């Protein structure tokens, strides 16, 4: 059995509200997009369940550019890429 790990998909807030919020109710909002968390085992199933979606696997920088351009996605990222993208839109809080 292959190792189970998490993947992250950035989807438009509108797309999330229309059809994905029941399945991913806690998806955080980043740069106007929602972040869906799933596993590598789920990935092929998601492609079957959402056959019209064009899953894109870009670099973190390319994903940021695509988000800034308002592209539809979904943009599938690793954890490290996701953190880079989240930090781009929401730099870490400073606490006192």
């Amino acid at each position: 059995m292959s190792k189970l790990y998490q993947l992250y998909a950035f989807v438009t807030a509108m797309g999330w509200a229309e059809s994905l919020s029941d399945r991913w109710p806690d998806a955080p909002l980043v740069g106007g997009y929602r972040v869906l968390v799933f596993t590598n085992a789920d990935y092929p199933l998601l492609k079957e369940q959402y056959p019209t979606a064009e899953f894109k696997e870009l670099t973190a920088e390319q994903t940021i550019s695509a988000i800034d351009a308002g592209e539809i996605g979904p943009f599938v990222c690793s954890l490290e890429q996701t953190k880079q993208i989240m930090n781009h839109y929401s730099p870490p809080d400073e606490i006192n």
Partner: protein
Amino acid sequence: MLNPILGSILSPILKPIFGGDINYVAQLDGATQSWQLTSPITLIANDVVELSFVGGQVSNAFAMFLESDSRNLYLSTTADSLNFRVKAAFGTPTLNSQLIDNNVTPIPSSGNNTISAATVGEEIMSYVTSRSGSSLFLNLAVYNFRVIRSGAVIHEIPLNNKPQGATQLATVGNVNAFMPNYTEAVWKEL
């Protein structure tokens, strides 16, 4: 008696089926996951809050181990994620029973560890580790959240019951914990 070689092969297969000594911990991702209490806990002065964790490299600045809703008390990492940072209102914080020196005590890079801290005054706590929507998420595996009042455990959530999944049930008290953005991939063998 089982042949030792055969046993080493079969053990990982049989333990999940028949039980055994496999223990799991949920490894938080440091980006979207934390443990949210199903109802807030009201802490009073001198309550002791305990949390165990598996040592490791923390990925975020100011990642929270414990914080109250008001953030009058918290136990976090420093900006470089290497040491513990303690809000003064959290009294007598300890790591493995040794007093934590604010900004000096290093975060263990391995092993099983327990932090504890006594509260100075009344506080509300709704999360274990960081609140949702924060950038202060912790990426370590945490378990055994406990609140002790006058020497008696009043809340205990082990946070390590893999079959329970996203909602972990209390073994003491009636407050459970829920992990937003949970997946099965969070579980690691302890």
